[in-house]
């Protein structure tokens, strides 16, 4: 069990760093729900189903939708 937690934590860190340091915003946007999903698993492991549920619905679902929409609206200034 500890093994899984450690592994998930490492994944969490990797995703977080990827989100921050990736050059393209689209990658960060897509990495965001991954980050959220890992968190959901972690919350479930830590016996916090309520929080896990909120995390799943809000971060992985709704917030990603918001990000995608906002990302679609903003134009890449380097291309113009």
């Amino acid at each position, binding site marked *: 069990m500890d093994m899984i937690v450690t592994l998930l934590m490492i994944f969490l860190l990797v995703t977080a760093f990827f989100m921050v340091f990736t050059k393209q915003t689209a990658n960060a946007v897509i990495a965001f729900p991954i980050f959220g999903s890992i968190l959901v698993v972690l919350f479930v492991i830590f016996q*916090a*189903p*309520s*929080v*896990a*549920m*909120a995390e799943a*619905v*809000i971060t992985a*679902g*709704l917030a990603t*939708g*918001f990000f995608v*929409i*906002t990302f*679609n*609206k903003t134009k890449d200034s380097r291309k113009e």
Partner: protein
Amino acid sequence: MVKKLYKLGLVVSLGMFLFVLFSDIHNLDRTSKNYLSEHYISEGVQETGAINLVTSVLYDYRAFDTLGEATVLLTAATILAFLVPVTKADMLGTTFTIIVYQATKYLIPFIAVLGVYVIMFGHLSPGGGFVGGVVMALIPILLSLTYGIDFSEYKLTPNTKKVVEDIGAIGFILLGLLAVLTGNNFLANGQAGFPLGNAGELISAGLIPYLNVMIGIKVGAGLAIIFNSLMKEQ
């Protein structure tokens, strides 16, 4: 170059301070410092009648915070609602195959049921007003995504959503004021003599289910407003 180094230095030193802080906290000997959470865990079910302790904290012990958070959401919805451009058009101009349309059509009742369940059983099982509200908000969001924003707003006009949101917020406050009517403090539940019922039943825990419903309504409508506002463009 100097500027870059300077920025790097700032980040490194901030990290250093944070590291010092966290390692200090980690090394700190902490015993008997969490009587509050102990109390919530051991007495929460009896005092509030809600099996889901998160809900008992959110809607009873610290229901006042929830009111504030709901207001924050309402404010955000208001901001986005008035910042949207006046002219509106579909942002995602793609048309989908019939599969998507039909799937959406049949998905909506299930989502609705799930949402209602999460809201209504908030005090018994994981979930609650916030999460259930988000699930409910998915219905108009799905409509906007597949059938287009015009259809979605034809079914549920922005004004309706706004009114529903306000009714949710007002309802929350009015439920809190019920306790004031009986001569107790604002947002009192068990203390004000509302029947807590048997823990585990649907109608139990006094006001908590109703507060859940109000928050659910409010969050669902608020998020739907926010999403539609974000989608619109000139």
